[in-house]
């Protein structure tokens, strides 16, 4: 069987062959397999040098000092370390945290845990375009607010929050600002100084690096303190113990170096592909783009095909690897909480498909996708009683549904 066309780059990316090649040099006896913490021999020194080089590359992509980069296992761990670490360290100052309903589960579930520990969390509702209303943010801040966490780019709809503006509201009040940048790193420029963030979560596998490695940016001036979540050896200046995974780290470093070099041309190319995809689908009736199109990363297009359920559409698109906002695969039957938070109605929330394009997506891939969708949308709508009712002029909101 021919492999499907991969259009799920926001889920993960393949490791760039150039990255894989570098990683292979840090594994075997012939390579540099040393423990970067070994101070007594050349194996350790060489490994440490490689780790520090990589730290420099990661720092360079976000305009940080290498000393501000803490290695973790990925963005989920970075989010946990940032939220729990800051909350527990600064709890004497206050116990209130502000975040957004459309955050990744790594933030939301961590926030829930902090609530169980006695912290208070405000979950802000974004505007229908997915962006945060700064007035609402400002209104949510209190005297005892210690931390605000707003993701840079949303994983489902790709919208970019205005972190610099958020920072201008948060920082004068002495509140820390954290951002999950797993979906923005390598796609749009990040300058931690200009954005005014104190903590920033990064992941390698969304940027053509390996899975299992990430980093947390922790501001040094003024110094941000965290309570460690992982103890044992005092690695990473005590913030995250555990032997450093040299091959993963050099992979992330190389991936971030390539991203820095190629981001600009790649972003322009992806923007072109997305414009073509959107244009190619625009003659299909009842198609809705979810989230703001302007403030959005180049490779993301999240679309609802009204009156078609997302999972059945994905089944029809088996030649494509895409993801659906509909979580019908779980027992919950809940549609995407992100789309619900934008105020999308149930049908549209259940009918969404996320296309995310990346480094290896070609024009032919996009043209094929457009043709396939035209073919399948028509077929599935013929099957849909909702489509028939819509065509007959029935207002679906007026129907008394026998909910089960």
């Amino acid at each position, binding site marked *: 069987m021919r492999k499907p066309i991969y259009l799920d780059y926001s889920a993960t990316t393949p490791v760039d062959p150039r990255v894989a090649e570098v990683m292979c040099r840090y594994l075997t006896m012939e390579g540099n397999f040393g423990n970067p913490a070994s101070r007594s021999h050349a194996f350790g020194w060489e490994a440490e040098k490689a780790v520090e080089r990589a730290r420099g590359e990661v720092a360079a992509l976000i305009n940080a000092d290498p000393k501000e980069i803490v290695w973790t296992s990925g963005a989920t761990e970075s989010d946990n370390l940032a939220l729990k670490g800051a909350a527990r360290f600064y709890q004497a100052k206050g116990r209130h945290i502000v975040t957004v309903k459309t955050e990744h589960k790594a933030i939301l579930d961590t926030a829930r845990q902090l609530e169980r520990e006695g912290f208070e969390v405000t979950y802000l509702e974004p505007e229908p375009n997915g962006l945060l209303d700064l007035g609402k943010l400002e209104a949510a801040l209190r005297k005892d607010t210690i931390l605000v966490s707003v993701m840079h780019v949303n994983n489902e709809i790709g919208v970019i929050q205005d972190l610099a503006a958020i920072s201008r509201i948060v920082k004068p009040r002495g509140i820390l600002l954290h951002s999950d940048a797993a979906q923005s790193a390598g796609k749009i420029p990040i300058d931690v100084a200009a954005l005014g963030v104190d903590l920033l979560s990064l992941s390698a596998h969304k940027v053509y690096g390996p899975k299992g490695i990430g980093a947390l940016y922790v501001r040094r001036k003024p110094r941000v303190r965290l309570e460690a979540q992982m103890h044992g050896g005092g690695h990473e200046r005590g913030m995250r113990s555990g032997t450093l995974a040299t091959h993963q780290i050099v992979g992330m470093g190389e991936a971030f170096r390539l991203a820095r070099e190629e981001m600009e041309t790649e972003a322009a190319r992806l923007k072109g592909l997305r414009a073509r995809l959107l244009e190619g689908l625009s003659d299909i009736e009842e198609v809705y783009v979810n989230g703001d199109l302007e403030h959005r990363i180049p490779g993301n297009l999240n679309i609802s095909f009204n009156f078609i359920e997302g999972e059945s559409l994905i089944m029809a698109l088996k030649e494509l690897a895409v993801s659906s906002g*509909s979580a*019908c695969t779980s027992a919950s039957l809940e549609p995407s909480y992100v789309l619900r938070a934008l105020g999308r109605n149930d049908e549209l929330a259940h009918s969404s498909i996320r296309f995310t394009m990346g480094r290896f997506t070609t024009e032919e891939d996009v043209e094929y996708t457009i043709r396939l969708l035209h073919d399948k949308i028509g077929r599935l709508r013929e099957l849909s*009683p909702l489509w028939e009712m819509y065509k007959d002029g029935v207002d679906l909101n007026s129907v008394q549904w026998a909910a089960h």
Partner: protein
Amino acid sequence: MAYGSKVLDHYENPRNVGSFDKADPTIGTGMVGAPACGDVMRLQIRVNEQGVIEEARFKTYGCGSAIASSSLLTEWVKGKTLEEAGQIKNTDIAEELALPPVKIHCSVLAEDAIKAAIADYRKKTGKDENVNAA
């Protein structure tokens, strides 16, 4: 998620897709589910004077298992009396299609759909009590 071969077959070649005229007195229509839950199933049956289902049609908004459950149902009810059709159990559908546990609700919906279609037909023809007594 991975689907069984029978679900895939019904999904790719759905049987008896379409609509009958709802106002026709020989037609019973059952529509169950809700867009909020991600599935809406509409089943229609054409019933002859002997109370036998001659034809069935469906349209379903939902996942592959929901489409397959309703497609299978249209095959099963054809040729059955209303009473026989009313005894189709969701477990039979789930077993035939080898539905995984998270998809059992699709078969439940299909059972609800045929019951709703039969009830609609009986209400229309005023044969409610007659048939119940039979």
